[in-house]
C-alpha cells in the first residue's frame, strides 16, 4: 500500500515537477563528478588530469540520466508530452498544410457529428418515461391473402376491452385517440391538440400531475367535464401551472374544468395539450368491432418478455377470431416497443444519411492521409536522423500518430462548431413528422461520439503514412541528399490506392445523390391533378355546431366578393389529406354488405365552386350548386378513376352510387371530375367521390375554405380571419397555402436528395483536391528539395561561413555546385559518429527540421483552390434549391399544417348508426411502404382519431 503511495507521489512529482526532478538528477550526478575529481586531486593528479580521469570513470552521463528517468515509469507520459509539443510545433511550422488538413477533417467530423446528433436524439435516446422498455403499442395485424401481413395501428374499442380483460401480462393498458379540436379559452377560440384517454393511460407511463390531480371515477362518466393540460399549455394561457387549476375551457361544446397539470417532460402523444377522459364522451362506435379508430398502448409486467406477451395476445386474438368471425377473421395483434413505434421508418432515412456522411469522413481521411503521406515522404530524412539517434520504429510511428491525433482533435473542435450549426440546419430542413427531432443537439453522447471519431480517424489517416515513413532505411535516406528522398514504389502505391479509394467512394455518393435528385425532379414533374398555386386554405371550425352550415354559407358569399378572389370553395380535407374512405356500390346495394372486400373510394365533402377554386377540371356533367341542399335529391360527383373502375366505357351520369359514409342513401351521380393524387405524386390517383356539404355531415364540423386568388394568397389570410370573426368570434381558424401543403409531399425526398447530393459535392471536392496533390507532387520535386539543408555547422563556423537563409552554409552550397553528388548529410553522419554527439547533433538536426519545407506550398495552394472552386460550383448549383427549401421550411411549421383528419363518430349527423362502417380500411390509409409520400405520415399516434 505504502509502496503504491510512494510510487504515485514520485510519479506525480516527475510529471508535474519534471524540471525540478531533472535538475535534482543533474545536481546529484554533478556532485558525484565533483567527488570523483576531488578524489583524483587527492591522489596527486593535476586538476586537468583529475577532471579527465573523473569524466572517464563516470562514463556516459546522458545515458545513465536516461536510465534514471526510465526508472520513474512515467517515461510514456513524458514522451507523449514531448510528442504533443513536437506535433504542435510541426503544425505551426507548416500552417498551410495544417489549415488544409484541419479544414478537411473539420468538415468530415462536423458533418458526422451533426448527423449523429440527430440520430442520437431520434433513435438512440431512451424515451423520457420510467422504464420505457416495458411500454409497448398494441396494433392489429391484418393477414393478407398473399401472406404479407400488414400492420394497422388503429384498433376497435370492443377488441381492446377483450385484450384488456383477458390478458395477464400487462401492468396497465389504455386506448387513446388524438386530434386537434377547437377550444374556447375565455372568449377566443383556437385549435388545441386533445387526446382522449382511458383510465390506465397515465399508469402506462407512470406519470403524475405536477399540480392538481388525475381524473376521478366520476369524471370518467359520460357527460363529465374535467381535463388535464400540459405544462406548456398551462404556462401559455395561465402563466403558472398552479393558476390553471379550476379554470374553465369550452371544448366539444361544453364547459370543462382543468383539474390537473402534467409535467413538462410528459408529451405523449406528441404535442398533446389537453387530455380528456375517453369515456366522458358518448360514442356509438365503442360497441362496434369494425370501428377501428383508437390507438392502444400498454405497460408490460416487470418480468414479462415481449415474445411471451406476444404469444398470449396472439392466443387471445385467435379466440376473438372464433367468437366474432364476421369482424375479426384475419385480424391478429402485434406488440411493438414504443421506441420502435415512435421512430417508425425514420430510422432507415437517418441510417442512410449516417452512411453517406460516414463515406464523406472516409474520403476526408483518405485525403488527409494523402496529404500526410506527401508531407511524410518529405520528412523521411528527418525520420532517418531520428532513427540514427536511436528512436525505435514504434517510437517514430507513435510520434506520427500523436501528430495525427493532435490534428484530429483540433479538427474535432472545429468540427463541433460545424456540428452545432449543422444540427440546427438539419433540424430546420428535416421533413415534418420526424419524431423527437427538436431534442437534437450536442450533448455528452454526441461529444463522446466525436471524441471516438477523432481518435479513430487519426489512426486511419496517420497510420498508413507513419508505417510507410518509419520503414525508411536510415542509411539510404541519409545517403540520398536531404529532402531529395525518392518516393519509393511502395509510397506511390499506397497513395495511388488512397486516391482510387477516394474516387470510388465519391462515385458511390455522387451516384446515390444523383439518383435521389433525379427521383425528386421526377416527383416534382408529376401533375397532382389540381393547381396548388395561388390557393389559400383556411381550416375553420365553428364552436357552435347547430349554426355551422349557415356560417359556412355566409362566409363563402362574404369571401367571394373580396377583391383579388377568383374562386371560392370549401372542402373537409384539402387534397393530400385524405379524411375518410368508404366502400361504394353502384346502382343497387347487395343483400350482404361486403364492407371489407368491396371497392373503396376516398370521400370528400365540398361546397359549390370548390373544383374551380382548386383547379380540378370538371370532365362531364355539372358542379354542385346552391340548390343541392338537405331537401334536394342527394347528388354526388365522382372522379375519373372511379368512373373507369365502376363504369368502364358507360356514361356514369344519372347512375346511382351508395357509399358507406354517413348513410346508405342512394346518390345520383351528377358530374365527373379529374383525378387528384391524394396520396402524393408517387402514388396513382384512387377513386374518389365528392358530396355536397349541405347534404352531409363532416368531421368535427370542420371545413377548409379554399380560395383561388389573383395575387399572393398569403395576403388574404388576415382579411379572411377578420371576416370569420365578424360572423362569429368563437371559430378557430388556421390559414396556410396549398403550395405549402403540397410541399410536404416533397419534404422527405428533398431532404434526402439535398443532403446526399451535398455530401457527394463535398466528397467530390475532397477527391479532386486529393488527385490534384497526387499530380502536383510528381515528377519534379520543388526546388527547395534540391538544396541540402543540413550543413556541418562546426565546419562552416571554422571557415567563417555563416548560415544563410536557406540554412545552408555558403561553403556547402559552393561545394554542392561543384559536386552535385556531394551530400551534406554525410557530414552529419560523420559528425554523428566522430564529434562529441549531443548538443552538436541536436542543433544540426533541429536546424534541418526547421529549414525543411516537407510539404511544398504549391500543393497547399492548389488543394485550397480546388476546395474553393468545387465549393463555389456546388453552392452555385445548390443555392437555388436550398433557397426554395429554406422558403418552404420557414413557411411550414407543424402548427401550420392543416390536418383535416379525424372523424368524431358522435358528431356525425344525422345517421349515427352506420358511422363505424367507413373506418376500417385495412392496410390502406394507415400503412405506408413508401413512408415519405404517404398522406398519413408514420407515427399515427400523433395523427387524428378517426
Amino acid at each position, binding site marked *: 500500500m*505504502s*509502496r503504491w503511495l*510512494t*510510487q504515485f507521489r*514520485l510519479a506525480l512529482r516527475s510529471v508535474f515537477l519534471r524540471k525540478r526532478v531533472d535538475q*535534482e*538528477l543533474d*545536481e*546529484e*550526478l554533478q*556532485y*558525484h563528478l*565533483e*567527488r*570523483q575529481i*576531488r578524489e583524483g586531486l587527492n591522489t596527486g593528479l593535476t586538476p586537468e588530469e583529475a577532471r579527465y580521469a573523473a569524466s572517464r*570513470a*563516470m*562514463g*556516459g*552521463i546522458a*545515458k*545513465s540520466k536516461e*536510465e*534514471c528517468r*526510465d*526508472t*520513474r*515509469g512515467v517515461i510514456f507520459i513524458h514522451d507523449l508530452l514531448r510528442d504533443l509539443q513536437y506535433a504542435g510545433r510541426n503544425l505551426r511550422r507548416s500552417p498551410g498544410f495544417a489549415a488544409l488538413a484541419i479544414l478537411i477533417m473539420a468538415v468530415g467530423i462536423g458533418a458526422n457529428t451533426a448527423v449523429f446528433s440527430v440520430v442520437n436524439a431520434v433513435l438512440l435516446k431512451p424515451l423520457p418515461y420510467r422504464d420505457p422498455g416495458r411500454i409497448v403499442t398494441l396494433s392489429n395485424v391484418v393477414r393478407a391473402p398473399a401472406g404479407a401481413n400488414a400492420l394497422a395501428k388503429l384498433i376497435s374499442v370492443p377488441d381492446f376491452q377483450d385484450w384488456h380483460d383477458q390478458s395477464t401480462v400487462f401492468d396497465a393498458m389504455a386506448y387513446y385517440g388524438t386530434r386537434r379540436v377547437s377550444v374556447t379559452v375565455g372568449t377566443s377560440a383556437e385549435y388545441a391538440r386533445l387526446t382522449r384517454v382511458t383510465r390506465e393511460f397515465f399508469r402506462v407511463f407512470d406519470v403524475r400531475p405536477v399540480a392538481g390531480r388525475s381524473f376521478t371515477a366520476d369524471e370518467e362518466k359520460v357527460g363529465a367535464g374535467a381535463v388535464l393540460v400540459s405544462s406548456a399549455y398551462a404556462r401559455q394561457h395561465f402563466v403558472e401551472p398552479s393558476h390553471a387549476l379550476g379554470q374553465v375551457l369550452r371544448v366539444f361544446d361544453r364547459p370543462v374544468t382543468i383539474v390537473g397539470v402534467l409535467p413538462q417532460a410528459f408529451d405523449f402523444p406528441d404535442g398533446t395539450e389537453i387530455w380528456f377522459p375517453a369515456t366522458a364522451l358518448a360514442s356509438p362506435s365503442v360497441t362496434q368491432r369494425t370501428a377501428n379508430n383508437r390507438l392502444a398502448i400498454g405497460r408490460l409486467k416487470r418480468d414479462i418478455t415481449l415474445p411471451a406477451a406476444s404469444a398470449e395476445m396472439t392466443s387471445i386474438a385467435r379466440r376473438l377470431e372464433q367468437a366474432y368471425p364476421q369482424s375479426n377473421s384475419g385480424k391478429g395483434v402485434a406488440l411493438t416497443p414504443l421506441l420502435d413505434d415512435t421512430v417508425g421508418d425514420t430510422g432507415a432515412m437517418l441510417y442512410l444519411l449516417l452512411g453517406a456522411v460516414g463515406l464523406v469522413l472516409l474520403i476526408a481521411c483518405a485525403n488527409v492521409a494523402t496529404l500526410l503521406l506527401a508531407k511524410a515522404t518529405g520528412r523521411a530524412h528527418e525520420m532517418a536522423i531520428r532513427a540514427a539517434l536511436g528512436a525505435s520504429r514504434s517510437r517514430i510511428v507513435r510520434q506520427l500518430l500523436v501528430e495525427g491525433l493532435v490534428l484530429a482533435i483540433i479538427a474535432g473542435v472545429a468540427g463541433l462548431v460545424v456540428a452545432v450549426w449543422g444540427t440546427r440546419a438539419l433540424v430546420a430542413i428535416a421533413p415534418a413528422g420526424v419524431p423527437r427531432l427538436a431534442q437534437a443537439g450536442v450533448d455528452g453522447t454526441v461529444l463522446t461520439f466525436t471524441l471516438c471519431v477523432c481518435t479513430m480517424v487519426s489512426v486511419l489517416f496517420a497510420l498508413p503514412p507513419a508505417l510507410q515513413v518509419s520503414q525508411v532505411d536510415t542509411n539510404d535516406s541519409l545517403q540520398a541528399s536531404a529532402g531529395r528522398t525518392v518516393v519509393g514504389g511502395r509510397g506511390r502505391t499506397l497513395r495511388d490506392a488512397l486516391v482510387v479509394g477516394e474516387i470510388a467512394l465519391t462515385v458511390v455518393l455522387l451516384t446515390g445523390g444523383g439518383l435521389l435528385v433525379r427521383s425528386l425532379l421526377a416527383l416534382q414533374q408529376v401533375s397532382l391533378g389540381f393547381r396548388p398555386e395561388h390557393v389559400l386554405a383556411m381550416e375553420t371550425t365553428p364552436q357552435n355546431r347547430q349554426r355551422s352550415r349557415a356560417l359556412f354559407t355566409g362566409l363563402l358569399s362574404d369571401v367571394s366578393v373580396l377583391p383579388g378572389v377568383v374562386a371560392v370553395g370549401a372542402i373537409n380535407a384539402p387534397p393530400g389529406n385524405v379524411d375518410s374512405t368508404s366502400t361504394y356500390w353502384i346502382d343497387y346495394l347487395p343483400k350482404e354488405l361486403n364492407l371489407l372486400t368491396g371497392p373503396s373510394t376516398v370521400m370528400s365533402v365540398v361546397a359549390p365552386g370548390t373544383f374551380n377554386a382548386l383547379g380540378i377540371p370538371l370532365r362531364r356533367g355539372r358542379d354542385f350548386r346552391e340548390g343541392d341542399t338537405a331537401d334536394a335529391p342527394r347528388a354526388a360527383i365522382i372522379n375519373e378513376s372511379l368512373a373507369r373502375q365502376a363504369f368502364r366505357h358507360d356514361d356514369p351520369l344519372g347512375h346511382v352510387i351508395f357509399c358507406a359514409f354517413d348513410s346508405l342513401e342512394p346518390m345520383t351521380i351528377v358530374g365527373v371530375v379529374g383525378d387528384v393524387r391524394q396520396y402524393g405524386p408517387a402514388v396513382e390517383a384512387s377513386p374518389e367521390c365528392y358530396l355536397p356539404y349541405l347534404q352531409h355531415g363532416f368531421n368535427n364540423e370542420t371545413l377548409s375554405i379554399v380560395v383561388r386568388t389573383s395575387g399572393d394568397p398569403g395576403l388574404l389570410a388576415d382579411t379572411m380571419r377578420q371576416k370569420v370573426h365578424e360572423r362569429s368570434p368563437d371559430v378557430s381558424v388556421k390559414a396556410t397555402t396549398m403550395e405549402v401543403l403540397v410541399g410536404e409531399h416533397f419534404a422527405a425526398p428533398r431532404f434526402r436528395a439535398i443532403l446526399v447530393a451535398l455530401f457527394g459535392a463535398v466528397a467530390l471536392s475532397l477527391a479532386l483536391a486529393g488527385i490534384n496533390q497526387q499530380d502536383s507532387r510528381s515528377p519534379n520535386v520543388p526546388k527547395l528539395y534540391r538544396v541540402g539543408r543540413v550543413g556541418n555547422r562546426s565546419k562552416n563556423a571554422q571557415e567563417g561561413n555563416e548560415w544563410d537563409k536557406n540554412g545552408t552554409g555558403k561553403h556547402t552550397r559552393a561545394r554542392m555546385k561543384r559536386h552535385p553528388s556531394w551530400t551534406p548529410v554525410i557530414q552529419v553522419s560523420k559528425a554523428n559518429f566522430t564529434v562529441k554527439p549531443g548538443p552538436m547533433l541536436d542543433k544540426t538536426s533541429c536546424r534541418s527540421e526547421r529549414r525543411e519545407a516537407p510539404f511544398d506550398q504549391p500543393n497547399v495552394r492548389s488543394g485550397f483552390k480546388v476546395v474553393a472552386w468545387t465549393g463555389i460550383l456546388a453552392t452555385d448549383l445548390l443555392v437555388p434549391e436550398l433557397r426554395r427549401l429554406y422558403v418552404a421550411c420557414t413557411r411550414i411549421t407543424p402548427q401550420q399544417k392543416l390536418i383535416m383528419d379525424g372523424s368524431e363518430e358522435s358528431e356525425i349527423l344525422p345517421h349515427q348508426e352506420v358511422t363505424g362502417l367507413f373506418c376500417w380500411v385495412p392496410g390502406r390509409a394507415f400503412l405506408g411502404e413508401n413512408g415519405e409520400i404517404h398522406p398519413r405520415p408514420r407515427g399515427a399516434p400523433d395523427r387524428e382519431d378517426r
Partner: protein
Amino acid sequence: MTKPKDLVQGTLDLLILRIVALEPMHGWAIAHRIRQMSSDVLQVGQSALYPALHKLEQQGWIKAEWKISETNRRAKYYSLTRPGRKALTEEAANWERLSAAISAVVRTV
C-alpha cells in the same frame, strides 16, 4: 566501468541496501563504501549506481532527502525505509543461501 562483471545481477540492490542500512548516505559515498568494504574488488560506476538507486526509491525501499554533505555541498542522501529493511533481511537471507549453495557445489568439485 559500468556494472562489475562478476557482480551477480540483482546483488547491487542488496549491496546498496546493506550500505544504506548503516547510515544515510549519498551516491558517491555509497559507491566509495562498497569499494572500500570489498577491498576494491567491487567497483560500482555511476551508470549502474544511480539507476539502481532511483529504482529502489521507486520501490519505496529507500528514501531520499537533500542534506549538506561533508564537503559543505548539497547532496542527496539515501536512507533505508521500513519496507527496505524488511527487503534487506529477505535478500540477505536469500543471498546467504545462494552463495552457500554455490560454494558447496564449487568446493566439492
